[in-house]
């Protein structure tokens, strides 16, 4: 608190003309930047609610023109969208649980300075950050484990991310006092019980951070699904979106009744905007509430550098 008042005092005394102009420039630049971000986001949403013809002929500038829900009605008719959503949710929940559990247990063991062999094991794990076998050998391993075309191919190959492991390890090493462990030891507490009943309850913020990082990673991934999943009914949302948005294969469930070429092109345009909105809404709605956890994660990660 005193720092803030001290800063304010300093400013009050010495607010020179230069500083004033400097402030104005900074506020202006930051406002422009923010507006540019907001504009793109608002425009996309507006386009998804506008008449196909208005979007196509460029009459949408900021707010929706000739408001309609046509895009959403057509998009929601597509069964694959729901399948994709459901699959993505399942993959995200299962994957996040597994990844978070593996990361926390591994990181805790490695955070214990009294663990024999800690240095060697850490070194072996860190080495994988700098050198990897590459995508083809990994694919062959996944294939030989018979994981192709299953949910596990999307979850297991990336189950532990080294950066999350390091964040968790740093947190455990710095935030769990050694005294706690000593006290628990005297009471005859095993490491396992110590971890589950004392360390974990003290680590809620870091658990949130790590679960969020994994969850978002799985939700936004299309690449693993593209190489490992062949059956369409197993597609996660992103792979389905790629099919329509990037490869422009609009499915007939959405546009089947429109035969005229020009109308079809217009319709496809707003279907794209609608899918962009539908595909990113979950995360964009949630993240402002979770913002503090992301910031925390970045800060803990930077402690160790």
């Amino acid at each position: 608190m005193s720092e803030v008042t001290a800063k304010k005092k300093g400013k009050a005394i010495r607010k020179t003309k230069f500083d004033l102009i400097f402030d104005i420039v900074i506020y202006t630049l930051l406002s422009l930047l923010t507006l540019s971000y907001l504009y793109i986001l608002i425009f996309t949403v507006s386009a998804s609610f506008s008449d196909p013809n208005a979007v196509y002929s460029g009459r949408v500038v900021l707010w929706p023109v000739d408001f309609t829900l046509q895009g959403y009605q057509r998009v929601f008719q597509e069964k694959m969208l729901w399948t994709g959503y459901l699959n993505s949710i399942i993959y995200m929940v299962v994957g996040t649980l597994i990844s978070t559990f593996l990361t926390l247990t591994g990181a805790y063991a490695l955070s214990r300075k009294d663990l024999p062999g800690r240095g060697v094991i850490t070194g072996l794990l860190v080495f994988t950050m700098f050198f990897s076998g590459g995508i083809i050998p990994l694919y062959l391993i996944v294939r030989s484990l018979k994981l192709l075309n299953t949910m596990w191919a999307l979850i297991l190959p990336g189950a532990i991310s080294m950066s999350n492991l390091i964040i968790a390890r740093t947190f455990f090493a710095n935030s769990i006092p050694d005294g706690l462990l000593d006290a628990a030891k005297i009471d005859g507490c095993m490491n396992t019980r110590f971890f589950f009943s004392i360390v974990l309850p003290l680590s809620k913020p870091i658990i949130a951070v790590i679960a969020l990082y994994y969850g978002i990673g799985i939700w936004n991934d299309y690449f693993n699904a593209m190489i490992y999943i062949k059956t369409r009914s197993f597609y996660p949302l992103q792979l389905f979106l790629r099919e329509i948005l990037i490869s422009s294969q609009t499915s007939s469930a959405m546009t089947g009744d429109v035969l005229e070429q020009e109308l079809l092109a217009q319709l496809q345009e707003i279907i794209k905007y609608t899918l962009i909105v539908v595909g990113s809404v979950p995360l964009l709605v949630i993240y402002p509430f979770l913002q503090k956890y992301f910031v925390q994660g970045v800060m803990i990660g930077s402690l160790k550098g």
Partner: protein
Amino acid sequence: MKEQSKTAVARRKSLRFRFSNTWDLYFFLIPTLVYFAIFHYAPMYGLQIAFKNFKTRQGIWGSPWANPVWYHFERLFSTSLLQTALLNTLALSFYSLIFGFLPPIILALMLNQVSNVRFKRFVQTVSYAPHFISVVVMVSMLFCMFSTTNGIVTRLLAVFGLGPYPITSEAQYFRGLYVGSDIWQNMGFSAIIYIAALSGISPELHEAAVIDGANKAQRIWHVDIPGILPTITILLILRSGSIMNVGFQKVYLMQTSLNLSKSEILSTYVYKVGLQDGDFSFSTAVGMFNSIVNFILIISVNAITRRLSETSLW
């Protein structure tokens, strides 16, 4: 008290004691070790197929050695595609590094000057948003925005009498579009780490500078920037370490038949030759080449920065 801790230290040193105290922790480690063995070290073992003629039936171990052993590397160095892909990989990385490294720092320095907390939080929240957009959605947004028929950016440029430019399809715009959209998407989120470092600078330094009559710009230059220099160095090393790992996901989505001459990078080439055409051995050789160059790069960058400054990764 002191005596107790001393004996504790002595006892801790005995390996047997340490093991008896920690043996159950190895159960914690087993899943992690198994994971790294299967999904990281087994693929490294699988690298040997770069020197073999991989046959699915015979597996990694059973496939016969290539003749000569470096046959696939010979092929690799004789194709002109390698040159293009390597050049494109390096170019994309360097442009990302050069143009993408400063914006988050500048954003953080500017945000640090803002005393209105509400305004600061608002700018931060908005600038994080694009980071959460998936790469598929991001690329399709680019396609929509820059569409030559009715993209919003194209129309904005037309107001000034510019264009239309075929930005998303033609090769000459590819690098700019890739790097520019990357900056747009990640600038806000990457700034967090610098904002954190800036908040760690002692306010006394600023007060002293104010007393010495420094204006805001001078304080940024003489207090803020030296204060976050270690963070900048570490991040620069980390970024350089991934120079060969250009984001496959985005490049692959942005590829069109027209921009291939600039958008074909090593990893997309590996994917096409290996997983689409099924030439596993050759594509593994390409991937291995990529990994080795990357490994050499990160070690040299670390060595150089260690010599130049106190800060290094190890």
